[in-house]
């Protein structure tokens, strides 16, 4: 396409004027209001012994499940939209202990990560790991928080002492009353569990005779089909996916096994949560400035290198 000299001059003048108007718009156009969906989430991190097993993958390295849980939670904070709230809790023994109620995730990011960094096995107040009961207590306590947060329960699902599927701890609440996601962490293979002492320091591994291998109540019954002899593997741990799925179904949670992208998890949280809209100011400057730039570049592109423009 060839344009006459006069047309080129006129076109340039028009384009430059439009660009000028766009720059003005970028500067003075009032911000528009936009609604984003925000949620309140309560991250419960399992800090029991089985979380010290190093079979989670983070950036290609094998790290302990706890390290993975902490890092993944931190990244999830980053992926949550500003205005969303996040709280923190730990799980040990048979209960979840809420340490920080949900706070705005952008303004308090520093404090949230500071607290998250403190999570380690020495905070555990007892050496058992009753996942299902901990989920129930988290639900009970979430009801006391206003607005009710979505629970994000990060665990490997290792129950110690073990429970028999037919003697599942009773859930008193209504399934789905509190929304939540169970995030499974850990690998497929059964691995020895590092053992922590009273001070929370790791001292060797749990031995086959250190732990119970059968549900306490089941073992007391004379019922033979409940007491089928099983392999004694409760001193080893892997991600108990089927157990976590059963648990999630019981309380009406979603179950996500070893997610790889924090953004995906945030999407799941957002999907299950009762999100509330929050209006934010959205500045369109980037669009205006971008188009203005494109127009100006259009004027100066060296067309002469490709086509003959002279006349």
């Amino acid at each position: 396409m060839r344009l006459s000299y006069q047309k080129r001059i006129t076109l340039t003048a028009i384009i430059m004027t439009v660009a000028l108007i766009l720059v003005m718009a970028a500067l003075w156009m009032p911000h528009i209001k936009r609604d984003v969906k925000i949620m309140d989430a309560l991250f419960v991190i399992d800090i029991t012994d089985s979380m010290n097993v190093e079979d989670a993958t983070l950036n290609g390295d094998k790290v302990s499940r706890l390290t993975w849980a902490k890092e993944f939670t931190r990244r999830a904070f980053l992926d949550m939209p500003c205005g969303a709230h996040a709280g923190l809790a730990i799980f040990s023994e048979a209960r979840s202990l809420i340490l920080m109620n949900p706070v705005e995730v952008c303004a308090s990011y520093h404090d949230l990560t500071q607290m998250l960094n403190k999570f380690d096995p020495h905070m555990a107040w007892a050496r058992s790991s009753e996942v299902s009961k901990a989920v129930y207590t988290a639900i009970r306590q979430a009801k006391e928080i206003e607005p009710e947060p979505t629970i994000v329960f990060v665990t490997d699902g290792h129950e110690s002492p073990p429970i028999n599927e037919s003697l599942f701890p009773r859930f008193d609440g209504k399934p789905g009353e509190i929304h939540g996601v169970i995030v499974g962490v850990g690998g497929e293979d059964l691995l020895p569990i590092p053992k922590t002492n009273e001070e929370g320091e790791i001292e060797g591994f749990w031995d086959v005779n250190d732990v119970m291998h059968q549900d306490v109540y089941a073992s007391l019954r004379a019922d033979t089909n409940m007491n089928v002899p099983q392999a004694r593997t409760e001193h080893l741990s892997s991600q108990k996916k089927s157990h976590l799925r059963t648990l999630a179904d019981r309380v009406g949670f979603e179950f996500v096994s070893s997610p790889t992208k924090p953004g995906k998890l945030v999407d799941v949280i957002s999907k299950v949560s009762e999100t509330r809209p929050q209006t934010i100011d959205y500045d369109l400057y980037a669009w205006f400035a971008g188009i203005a730039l494109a127009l100006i570049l259009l004027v100066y592109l060296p067309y002469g290198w490709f086509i003959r423009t002279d006349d």
Partner: protein
Amino acid sequence: MLSWELPILLWLLPLALLPWFSHNTEKTVAWQAMLPHDRLSQFLTLLLKSLSSLAIAALLLALAGPFIPERLVERSRQGAEFVIALDRSRSMDDIFARPPRNTLPIEAFSTRSKRTVSGDYLLEFVKRRPDDRFGYILFSTRATEILPLSYNRDAILATIAAGGLGKGLSKTDIFQALSKAASLFEGEPYRGSRNILLISDGGEILDADEKTQLQRRLADMRINLYWIYLRTVRGMTLDEQEDDNLLWLDMPERKLHTFFKSLNTPYQAFEAGSLKEFAAAIDEIHRQQYQPLIVEERLPKQSRVNLFLYLALLCCAVLVMARLYTGWGVYRAYRQ
């Protein structure tokens, strides 16, 4: 100093040189010698090309999202630094200021636990002190610093609020709690009054080693200690009385109080047996702790986009004028 939201866009900066290679709006003249040479024109050509370059560069820089990151500035204010150590033991789940069971309840008493009551007053206390820095220790048999000293009000308020939820853990270890609380000040420059606010309902007998350790740490770090003691046994005071019950003489609370009094650092105990006393204790601490304090204020991230947009605007305005003038001239020239 200046940071960028999208630093990758800075790689496009060479595009600003385009005006120097482009001849889109130049007229090819058959014979160069026919062109008049005047210095003003040459200057204008240079100027317009520079302005075009500048406009492109300014827009690119604006798009890259320049901002000055969040900064901390030190200001002098009135206030203090507090580490809150709130007992998370089982006994704190008991009803606060409950009359003994063997007396007729004359007045109605609240049925809230010691922990919720303490939490509520702490929330009130923190809200009233805008410039203070707070840290939080969770302690029971073991102490963990869950919130290092922070100016973030939301975080500390949320942490205190969370302390009121659920049931207590196991027992109390005050020595652990105090050493942990003191360790929060470790490595921090001295900014002003440092305080540990210990809220518990029980005492503990410390051994000689623990005593000297605590004494030294508190003195080294110049920490004041406040103890809000939530009375468990009605009528018992921390200080010995004339008409003391013989059973109270060896109470761990009293032993602990005696030790605290022997500290070389300021110490004050408040015995809260009722909501009123608790409120008075909190008020008294609030009143005492107004000393010059160096606080760090967080200046939020500031965008510098407009600076570059104005620059682009200025360049574009001149360019547009030049273009319109040229356009008008060419239009007239062709019409003739």
